[in-house]
């Protein structure tokens, strides 16, 4: 079998009407597991809301924060969600630019994941603020008082970076959905028709619209890539700009970006398995796509591992005694279990992705991807907590494991994200219909051409054995053009 056929990510014979029907059906009748997941998410969110109301009323002390631990899981979770948001950009923007076709069936939900994880991430700086009602002071607005935020503070950069990234990625998601909205408008009735009718912005599918659409999409993709990288670099500067051991590290920006892509890919794997099951998307989210995602994840995991080891080495061979002490403390001190969990999940577990059998076994991949995510979560925690626990000032050394309130809010954030995501996939096509059609179309052509070529070659071969001579169809090299 040829490479194209072996690697083909989707059955090219899918009819366009069937694609429409399948995707629309997924939005109407998912499996029961979907509803269960939805209920779980709502319950988790409810816990978090209750916890947050308590915390808002009584103060940050209810989260168990204390003098050395001014930040804890809230910030770790914030970084985690920001990181997760990078996968969507990777899949839809970077892979779009480099024409990786296999992204097409899965980039929609990855993009949605970007937007929603940013929406989750964005909540955390607010939850963690002591006086959240004054949050707007971070923004540079023309104030009656004539005072401005402190532009030197990485937290202000955060505010800019996150809001820009959130609005851009939401826009990117929306733009990419316009042709699908039109399909939905044409295939639904009642309020849905009106709803999609408004959202498709009068899409008719004529040439001019397609041309503008492609241009806009490419433009946004190009804009989003540096933005994504800068956002996580800025988040890393929350730490790298400080003076604290374990935070004041030059390699933090690339390390954070790599970590972000890593956790994003892992999250995509999780959601891939989930959606595939919930919406019976086996035909669209094929094992071949999973394979490719796994390989990508593995590559990024290795980059991250490398950067992580570099960081350790730099600390180890550096002359900052505080840094070095902290590294030893991380590995041997009270946080050792968490630290080694991170090492195991982040550096060892990805090697399971080397095995094709595992890659094609969905339950294993669910477990592996969750382990990777766990690794990436505790990595963030291992950045935030030990530095605070064992910083310059030994008198204030303290180990913190959080309180119920803190854990509830952190767990609840998964509920919040899940809720948004599940509502999204119910309301919007989680598989991009027009791009899958494009994919099928291109694939069909490629296969046809290959078949064609094969036949030609066979004929030529037959001809050659029959007595040689030139190909009757002329130059075969032209066919590929």
């Amino acid at each position, binding site marked *: 079998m040829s490479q194209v056929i072996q690697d083909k990510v989707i059955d090219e014979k899918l009819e366009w009407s069937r694609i429409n029907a399948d995707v629309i059906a997924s939005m109407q009748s998912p499996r029961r597991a979907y509803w269960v997941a939805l209920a779980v998410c709502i319950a988790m969110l409810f816990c978090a809301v209750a916890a947050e109301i308590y915390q808002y009323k009584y103060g*940050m002390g209810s989260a168990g924060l204390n003098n050395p631990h001014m930040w804890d899981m809230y910030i770790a979770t914030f970084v985690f969600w920001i990181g997760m948001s990078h996968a969507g950009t990777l899949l839809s923007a970077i892979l779009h630019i480099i024409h990786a076709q296999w992204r097409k069936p899965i980039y929609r939900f990855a993009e949605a994941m970007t937007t929603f994880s940013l929406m989750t991430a964005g909540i955390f700086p607010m939850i963690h603020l002591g006086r959240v009602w004054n949050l707007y002071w971070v923004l540079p607005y023309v104030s009656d008082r004539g005072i401005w935020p402190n532009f030197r503070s990485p937290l202000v950069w955060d505010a800019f970076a996150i809001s820009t990234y959130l609005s851009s990625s939401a826009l990117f998601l929306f733009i990419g959905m316009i042709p699908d909205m039109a399909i939905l408008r044409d295939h639904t009735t009642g309020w849905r028709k009106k709803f999609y009718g408004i959202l498709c912005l009068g899409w008719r599918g004529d040439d001019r619209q397609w041309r503008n659409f492609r241009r806009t999409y490419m433009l946004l993709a190009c804009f989003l890539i540096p933005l994504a990288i800068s956002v996580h670099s800025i988040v890393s500067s929350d730490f790298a700009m400080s003076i604290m051991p374990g935070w004041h590290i030059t390699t933090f920006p690339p390390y954070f970006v790599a970590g972000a892509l890593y956790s994003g890919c892992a999250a995509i794997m999780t959601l891939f398995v989930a959606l595939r099951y919930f919406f019976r998307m086996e035909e669209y989210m094929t094992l071949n796509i999973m394979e490719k995602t796994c390989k990508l994840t593995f590559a990024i995991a290795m980059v991250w591992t490398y950067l992580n080891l570099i960081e350790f080495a730099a600390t180890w061979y550096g002359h900052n005694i505080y840094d070095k002490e902290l590294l030893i403390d991380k590995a041997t001190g009270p946080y050792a279990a968490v630290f080694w969990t991170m090492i195991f999940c982040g550096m060892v577990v990805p090697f399971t992705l080397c095995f094709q059998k595992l890659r094609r076994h969905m339950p294993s991949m669910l477990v592996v991807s969750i382990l990777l995510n766990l690794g990436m979560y505790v990595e963030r925690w291992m950045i935030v907590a030990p530095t605070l626990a064992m910083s310059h000032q030994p008198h204030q050394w303290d180990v913190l494991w959080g309180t119920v309130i803190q854990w509830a809010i952190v767990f609840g954030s998964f509920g919040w994200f899940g809720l948004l995501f599940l509502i999204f996939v119910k309301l919007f096509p989680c598989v991009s219909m027009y791009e899958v059609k494009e994919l099928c179309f291109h694939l069909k052509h490629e296969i046809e051409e290959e078949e064609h070529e094969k036949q030609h070659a066979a004929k030529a071969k037959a001809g050659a054995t029959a007595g040689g001579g030139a190909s009757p169809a002329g130059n075969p090299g032209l066919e590929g053009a």
Partner: protein
Amino acid sequence: MSLKNILENFSYYRRDAEAGGHHEYEHRFAMAIDLDICTGCNACSTACYAENNLPVVGKERFEAGQAMHWLRVERYWDEIEGDYPEQGAKMIPMMCQQCGAATCEPVCPVAATYHTPDGLNAQVYNRCIGSRYCSNNCPFRVRYFNFWSYYEDSWPEPLRMQLNPDLSVRDKGVMEKCTFCIQRIRNAKDKSQREERPLVDGDIITACAQACPTDAIVFGDTMDPESRVSKAWAKHQIHRGPVTAKKQKADEEIRGYRVFDELNVDPSVMYLERVRDTEV
């Protein structure tokens, strides 16, 4: 600040940190704390509670690490092999060091902490939004956060009547720290203005320095060369600004030092080493 301004005053803005850097200082308040005569008795800390409306947090919150002692007397044991700590314990009063190059200042998103013309790290409570970045970035860990609405139960009537009206009572969600008794500085300045005379050494005395039974804490203005604290700094060869080669102590055995000087944060508190008679 326009570009023109920057170009015209380029050399001014590039001033040496010892000369104040880009700050326009009127005073640079500083301390000299002699650890040889500091007994660790805690009078300073209690005086600070009395002067600065510090809430009493109670056992549970103290256990959670949420106490609000702006000035804490840290006690360290010697790392010894023998059976007994024969040189006693090590005591050090640790408060905000009012760093000249404070790490807390640049990271505050709303500029609630900034450098004053008095050379102090101001903390403006009502501007603070509680991001707590400043405390995270403080190597001394001397910033305290109002994790709860402490005022609600710290001063049951009539204890509330003791509160010092010269400074605010802080509510939850606000960072706070030692101010070198800014209200005393202000009152002393007001008084000297009222009496139409310049501020002289001894006009201002912080609550901790006032209470200290051994007078181990000396407070004053390092811009006044005649002040006791200036003389102490000079005597112990500690200079303003980051530690550079030219400002290293000529004699390493002279007692003055600043904690975490290697981080180049330019603390305003000079400690004098503890002395022990090693011959007994």
